[in-house]
């Protein structure tokens, strides 16, 4: 069964500093990988996704993520954070259910990002 680990529960960075959020996955085949962001009291918004091709993926809000098969990682990065980036971030791995061909996502437990002035 697939699983996702986000080793950092909480990260604090200064506004303008660079950011990297870690994500490690476990999945037997080539994974579909996603990053979502959740602002306080809101649902989850898709930031970016990887399913094939270029291992460096660009997303919305200036975020990017790099798929590294050898490390089973899909880390999220941003070169310069803004106060509005304070939120919770979730990594997810998608798998295909053999009985239906449908996609099922498994989520990590999230990383809460705090931005200090």
């Amino acid at each position, binding site marked *: 069964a697939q699983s996702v680990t986000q080793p950092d529960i909480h990260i604090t960075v200064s506004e303008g500093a660079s950011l990297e959020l870690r994500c490690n996955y476990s999945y037997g085949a080539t994974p*579909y990988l996603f990053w979502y962001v959740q602002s306080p*009291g*809101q*649902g*989850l918004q*898709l930031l970016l*996704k990887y399913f094939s091709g270029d291992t460096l993926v660009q997303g919305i809000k200036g975020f990017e993520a790099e798929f590294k098969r050898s490390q089973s990682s899909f880390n999220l990065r941003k070169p310069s954070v803004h106060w509005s980036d304070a939120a919770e971030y979730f990594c997810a791995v*998608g798998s295909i259910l053999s009985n239906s061909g449908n*996609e099922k996502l498994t989520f990590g*437990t999230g990383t809460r990002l705090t931005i200090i002035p």
Partner: protein
Amino acid sequence: DVKVTQSSRYLVKRTGEKVFLECVQDMDHENMFWYRQDPGLGLRLIYFSYDVKMKEKGDIPEGYSVSREKKERFSLILESASTNQTSMYLCASSFSSPPYGYTFGSGTRLTVV
């Protein structure tokens, strides 16, 4: 833009009440999902549906049931609410062909007293 609408942002219910959480999507998605979100536990899948009148149990279905009578609507039912069901509930939908990921609603924060 795809919209997934959850009928209530906040609900307060009493122990033992029957609770209905409604979710409607407007983009003709085949798949719909119900998650609960708790601090430190992330998102846990309760039930999902890949077609009308079809449902499958997720990872934590106990104490819940679902109904999908129309393609756009997926209801989560707490037959007899308990305090340990106090949580944020998130509905999501997606197309059947991956890898699109899910589109989420804004969530319903349910408090059972």
